[in-house]
């Protein structure tokens, strides 16, 4: 068995494990210290939160969740603020004109369910397609693929994804991955950094399929190492076949939590409890359940099976409870679950998965100026689109959860529609039958999704579960009390709150605290929750090393 070193300790590696996975398996959940000296570990597990930064072979600020383990690496825990390696020779200055330019007919951004199906349908129509994704293995969050060498596909969901990825690879779609798209300046002007080199991309049509990331859940203790999103925990298992701990608590809102609890249990974890914020099946939700069964009988059945499977495994499923606090005990993390009557259940676990819904990753669409509207039911911005999935910016299409949550099956249909339409714009023949079928499927998927939301409807706590010292901004360590102090003086706009508190100025670039703050300002100041309520979108869309941004030449 091969290994790398972490803080002098030998860490064994299994094939396909990320640095974060190998460390978690070795019991190392605290990966760095913040400015205040607090330990942090994996939170989002998908490259968004920047909480799992470690130093790898002298290069600081590497996301442990995104980097594959390799034998012989030296990984060290990072103290704030890190240290850049010494070097005295800088690269010769370049101008934007020196960058290599790519001119695909269609650029697809994101290799999840929506992006893969968009790329495939556009390619089938004969278009020249470039697909870029942040991860080295396409599939996105829903089809989350097993990393190479980690094992065979786990289930139908992964097999379906593997087949789709294989189809895309065989179709002649060009794939650039892992690649960071950091600049979106116009419908025909993008910048992407791949393998330490930056490219300017000037496509004729663009399809955004950027997906979603999990919402923060600001309660006391939510930043402790071992507390991570349900998606992060699922990635550890599905991609790397790694359980972060033996005793796991899963708490959240929505069916993903039930699925992941079962998957982890099947993988050998001791699921100490599952907490679901929704009220659970009953008379009130009979109608939604019925609608679910009618619009998606197979999925509805699978959902019912999830609940039964938990029961079969003897796992306690607490409906109508939510996690309100976590503290570090002597023998593990102590979580408090509270029901609607205010009664508490105390649960001890070594790791906690939190899955309280998703935020659309709409940074690129917003940077391009595509119009968005606030959807009160979904609680987030929804991209304004035509029936063909075109945004208000001509030649920019958007599909899937990035436009407002809709689920992976809908994303696939939307991807098909966008891919066929974008190729049609380029003069390729339009497969009318496929288009009609995709539209019919989409209608059904949307009905299903709507019923699902009603079934899992639960009140939003906003910042009401925070205590004074709970962090509302993980990156800049802004407490609820500090936010309150900033708000006490006048009715500051979101930009002014940002300047006063530094919320949104950290490494996650406001992805976690932004939506929380928008909702809070709406609640406390009555500000409208439209697209202007959010932090102004500013590049880079992800943090990228300066040397990579300005590298036009060959890879190092």
């Amino acid at each position, binding site marked *: 068995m091969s290994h790398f070193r972490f803080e002098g300790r030998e860490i064994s590696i299994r094939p396909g494990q990320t640095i974060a996975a190998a460390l978690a398996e070795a019991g190392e959940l605290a990966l760095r210290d913040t400015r205040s000296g607090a330990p942090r570990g994996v939170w989002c597990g998908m490259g968004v939160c920047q909480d799992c930064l470690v130093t790898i072979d002298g290069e600081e600020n590497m996301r442990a969740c995104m980097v594959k383990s390799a034998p012989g690496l030296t990984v060290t825990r990072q103290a704030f603020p890190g240290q850049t390696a010494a070097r005295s020779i800088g690269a010769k200055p370049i101008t934007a004109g020196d960058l290599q330019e790519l001119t695909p007919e269609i650029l697809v951004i994101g290799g999840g369910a929506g992006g893969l199906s968009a790329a495939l349908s556009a390619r089938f129509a004969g278009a020249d397609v470039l697909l870029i994704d942040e991860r080295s293995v396409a599939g996105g969050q829903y089809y989350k693929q097993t990393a190479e060498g980690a094992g065979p596909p786990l289930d139908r969901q992964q097999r379906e994804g593997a087949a789709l990825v294989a189809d895309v690879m065989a179709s002649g779609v060009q794939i650039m991955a892992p690649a960071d798209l950091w600049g979106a300046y116009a419908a025909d002007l993008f910048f992407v950094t791949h393998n330490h080199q930056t490219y300017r991309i000037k496509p004729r049509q663009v399809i955004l399929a950027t997906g979603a990331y999990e919402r923060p859940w600001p309660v006391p203790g939510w930043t402790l190492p071992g507390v991570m999103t349900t998606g992060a925990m699922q990635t550890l298992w599905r991609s790397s076949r790694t359980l972060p701990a033996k005793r796991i608590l899963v708490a959240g809102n929505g069916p993903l939590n039930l699925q992941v609890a079962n998957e982890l249990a099947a993988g050998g974890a001791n699921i100490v409890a599952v907490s679901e914020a929704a009220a659970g099946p009953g008379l009130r939700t009979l109608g939604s359940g019925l609608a679910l069964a009618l619009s998606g009988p197979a999925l509805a059945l699978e959902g019912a099976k999830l609940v039964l499977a938990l029961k079969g495994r003897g796992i306690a499923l607490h409906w109508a409870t939510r996690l309100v606090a976590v503290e570090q005990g002597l023998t593990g993390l102590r979580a408090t679950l509270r029901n609607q009557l205010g009664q508490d259940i105390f649960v001890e676990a070594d790791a906690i998965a939190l899955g309280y819904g998703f935020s659309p990753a709409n940074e690129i669409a917003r940077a391009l100026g595509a119009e968005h509207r606030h959807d009160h039911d979904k609680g987030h911005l929804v991209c304004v689109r035509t029936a063909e999935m075109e945004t208000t910016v001509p030649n920019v299409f958007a599909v899937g959860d990035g436009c407002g949550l809709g689920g992976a099956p809908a994303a696939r249909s939307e991807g098909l529609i966008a891919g066929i339409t974008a190729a049609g714009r380029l003069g390729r023949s339009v497969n009318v039958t496929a288009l009609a079928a995709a539209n019919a499927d989409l209608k059904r998927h949307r009905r299903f999704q709507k019923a699902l939301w009603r079934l899992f409807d639960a009140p939003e706590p906003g910042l009401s579960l925070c205590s004074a010292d709970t962090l509302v901004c993980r990156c800049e360590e802004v407490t609820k009390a500090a936010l309150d102090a900033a708000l006490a003086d006048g009715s500051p706009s979101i930009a002014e709150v940002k300047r*006063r508190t530094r919320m949104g100025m950290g490494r996650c670039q406001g992805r976690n605290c932004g939506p929380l703050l928008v909702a809070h300002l709406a609640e406390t100041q009555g500000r409208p929750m439209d697209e202007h309520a959010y932090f102004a979108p500013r*590049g880079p869309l992800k943090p990228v*090393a300066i040397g990579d941004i300005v590298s036009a030449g060959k890879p190092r």
Partner: protein
Amino acid sequence: MSLPSDIDVVVIGGGIVGLSTARALSTDGRGVLVIDEGRNAGTNANAGSLHVQMQSRFLRMYPDQIGNLEYSLPLYPRAVGAWQQLARDLKADFELKISGGLMVAEDAAQFAFLKEKAERERALGLDVHMLERNELMAIAPYLGDAIYGAELCVTEGKLNPLLANSALRRAVLAQGVVIATETIVSALEQRDAGYLVSTSRGQVRCKTLVLAAGAGTGALSAHLSVVIPTVAEPLHMNVTEATSPLILHLVQHADRMITLKQLGAGQVVIGGGWPARFEGPQAFPTVEPDSLIGNLSLAQHVVPRLSRLRLIRTWAGVNTTCDGQCVLGALPGHANAFVAVPGDAGYTLGPLVGDMAAAIIAGRDPGFDVRPFSASRFA
């Protein structure tokens, strides 16, 4: 919020100049209302360099303004002093550091240009020194192999503008100044001995009016038929994630557009006047990717260790340009309306210009011959 109907002084512009003016006038015992549009520009988008030596960018871009720049040069060391005084007065730590500023040269010709510049600056009272490469590396080991030498200006420095602006704002509020944000002025009229100010939140009458709105000042003075040709210049800015102390000085270049400095919390701010643009009907200051590439490329050339540091955010700041000199004093033809727009490096000059404006309004000596700063020069 609703506006008071009547007040001694209305200051239009809630940036560093407007707040400094308001603070001084309020200390004099006047009731002051500050009206601000709440745009992310000017002071709000400033990066906190304290400039003293002449910036090579201005010398190159506006050779006709060199005379004006040299006339104003003695103001800059005083302006840094005003910042230090402000920090003491407010008992606030906004990471103000007089760390010295380096203007680097990459070859003998650039070094010669700096040498000549330094001689003129020294004659005007600036504390500047020329450093050969070995002397330079002794104090700035972070600079790359490409750097030949530099001019050191001892009194330059930096501060954290977010902290400074907040501290000043809190102090001004504590003194009883009213600040109306997200408020847009639609008209200014002379009424009796005073002025009527019409805004998006209603009207207010005042005895004394101060225009301190940076690039927006020209549009305001036009309501009173006074020409002030302020121009908004959107400029590209970058900030990295935090790293350990690396860049100690304010760093500039003799021949190329770059400013580099590191904030107290470790982030490196990179600017230098690369162009941005205004976008859409709201004229939102917007970043140009060509500036991002050019600016960052130069940054890692000058400080190679920046190469592995990640860029977190870019934005467009808004600089005010006019003719290289302050516009300060009573508006021509108006006894009770004043203007306070600093010359180049307006943020550096802000607290000093605010104090000078308040002195002029109170009939005191501003401590500098401000006659050349009168807006009458544009008539």
